[in-house]
């Protein structure tokens, strides 16, 4: 039976959700806010309605207003997308209390995975490896040394309350540990009012590898892994599936994927979600966190497995049968890469809002572009600078790279500052092409320094812009 599904999100993900809802024969209901009355996602929704207000706390984060709207519109289910209320268990409970279906995991699973200490303990109990280190606060230098001896140097001293790179020091030997221990204590006290610290194994060149989970009330499947090691400010900008670092090592692949399923099972996971790991040089891996939502980079998994994650996430929540009924039906084929197209300076990588005055593309075979751009749209500082995701699929990694390089050449966004040139630099860079790169890639390789445009090319761009306007 056709359901009325409210999308409380915007941008490219709202479009992706609306497409899945429409395809399944349900009614997609989109919202617009006062600072985005002409949002592109509306054009994909069957019904549109106003969510009054212009800042996010009045709109996409306003639980009561959303619930009121849902009741008024006779909504059967709510899809939160990512960000905003996607991982807010309080909201999930409120939605369910109204007899509305939340398209996402159960509130309990969100609670358990949202708490770092709880999720780490849960992982340990489920026999999922976590980064080796102290179980709780370390009281003395002597205790820290004993732990470091056991897990091996280098170790990371971490202020319990720290964050954003503050209150963290790497120690490669006993001597450094003795010097840094009191320093981190002082930093913790002065920055966070808490001198407590933890000792953890320091992973020198970590790879960020994550396992896609798809589950309903009965089954938990993995939909293989993705590698997302190209990051800036701890945010991913290029992702690929399968992981080039795991490569042909099927033993490691099976192991990490099954570990992901084990963890999801430990919280009775019942939706689409992602278990994130970091992988060391020797391919040992450790649980980082679980994202209890659909992720930005889900398309590369869809491309390599053929499984529509959004449609299945909706079916799971509505209690319908998934498109697959066993793990054996799921296989990974070819290679897919995603480049996040952001309204930001390609060199400083800082957000740069503005107006898109011209927009055009003509892609080769194998390209998918999930985006929310049109000519004339204003990208405001109210939301995340990500405006689109360029996704390539090829029979192998080299082909996926080739297709992506061509697609980047043929994607034109005029007026608005964007990071297309940065992606071109990355896709042409040797270390990226080799597939052997860590989360320090941007920091170490600095591909932004390789962005080069000749003065002739600059003149041509300007002349083309003049012609583009007067004609």
């Amino acid at each position, binding site marked *: 039976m056709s359901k009325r599904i409210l999308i409380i999100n915007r941008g490219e993900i709202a479009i992706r959700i609306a497409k899945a809802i429409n395809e399944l024969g349900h009614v997609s209901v989109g919202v617009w806010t006062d600072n985005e009355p002409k949002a592109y996602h509306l054009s994909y929704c069957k019904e549109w309605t106003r969510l009054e207000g212009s800042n996010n706390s009045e709109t996409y984060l306003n639980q009561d207003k959303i619930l009121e709207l849902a009741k008024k519109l006779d909504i059967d289910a709510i899809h939160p997308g990512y960000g905003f209320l996607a991982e807010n268990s309080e909201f999930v409970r409120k939605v369910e209390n109204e007899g509305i279906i939340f398209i996402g995991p159960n509130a309990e699973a969100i609670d358990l995975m949202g708490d770092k200490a709880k999720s780490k303990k849960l992982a340990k109990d489920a026999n999922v490896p976590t980064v080796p280190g102290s179980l709780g606060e370390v009281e003395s230098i002597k205790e820290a040394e004993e732990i470091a001896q056991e897990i091996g140097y280098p170790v990371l001293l971490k202020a319990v309350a720290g964050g954003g790179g503050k209150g963290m020091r790497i120690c490669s030997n006993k001597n450094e540990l003795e010097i840094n221990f009191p320093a981190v204590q002082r930093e913790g006290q002065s920055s966070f009012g808490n001198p407590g610290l933890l000792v953890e194994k320091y992973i020198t060149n970590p790879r960020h590898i994550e396992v896609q989970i798809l589950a309903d009330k009965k089954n938990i499947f993995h939909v293989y892994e993705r590698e997302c090691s190209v990051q800036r400010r701890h945010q991913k900008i290029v992702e690929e599936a399968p992981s080039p670092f795991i490569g042909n090592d099927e033993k490691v692949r099976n192991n990490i994927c099954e570990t992901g399923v084990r963890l999801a099972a430990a919280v009775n996971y019942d939706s689409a979600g992602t278990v994130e790991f970091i992988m060391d040089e020797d391919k040992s891996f450790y649980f980082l966190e679980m994202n209890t939502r659909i992720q930005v980079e889900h398309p590369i998994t869809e491309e390599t497995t053929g499984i529509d994650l959004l449609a299945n996430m909706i079916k799971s929540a509505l209690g319908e049968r998934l498109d697959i009924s066993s793990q054996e039906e799921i296989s990974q084929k070819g290679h897919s890469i995603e480049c996040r197209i952001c309204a930001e*300076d390609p*060199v400083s990588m800082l957000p740069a809002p503005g107006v898109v005055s*011209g*927009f055009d593309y003509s892609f080769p075979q194998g390209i998918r572009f999930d985006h929310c751009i049109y000519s004339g749209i204003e990208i405001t500082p109210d939301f995340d600078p990500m405006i689109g995701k360029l996704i390539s699929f090829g029979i192998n990694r080299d082909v996926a790279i080739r297709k992506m390089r061509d697609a980047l050449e043929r994607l034109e966004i005029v*007026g*608005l500052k964007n990071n297309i040139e940065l992606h071109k630099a990355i896709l042409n860079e040797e270390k990226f092409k080799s597939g052997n790169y860590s989360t320090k890639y941007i920091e170490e390789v600095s591909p932004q320094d390789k962005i080069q445009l000749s003065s002739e090319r600059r003149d041509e761009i300007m002349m083309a812009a*003049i012609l583009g306007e007067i004609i």
Partner: protein
Amino acid sequence: MRYYFSGENEVVFDIEKTKNGYKILKDKLEKIYSIKEIGDSLFFSSDDKEWKKLIKLKSLKDISIASDKFNVYKGFKPSGVGEQDFGSLVTQMPGKIVKLFCSVGDEVKKGDTLLILEAMKMENEIKAGADAVVKLVNVEENQSIESGHLMLELDIKA
């Protein structure tokens, strides 16, 4: 028509309509572009061999090239004197006509002030870039105009 791309450096282009397309001049670099329409798309070429799709722009107020951002001004720069080499005087900034010094049929000399436009809280003297005859006056004193408004047209003397 003159375009100023004003960023860290300033680049100036002059564009002129020709019989089959457009001529764009930058310093000594001159390119003549032909335009061709196929379906809904427009293409341009400077050698009639290699054609590139033209991205139709809603407006050209600013443009980013990699990390560099340029403000684009048409006809004149709001910060100073805009010397006109070509006939059409179009304002890029919304503004107000403070004074009008010419009327249709007037002969003007290069450097003559034609009108004063107040835009961005600054008065801009719009001057004739060449000896010419005023062909059209499309503004009056105290009139507020939007960006893109054609203010004057001159017949440039050969």
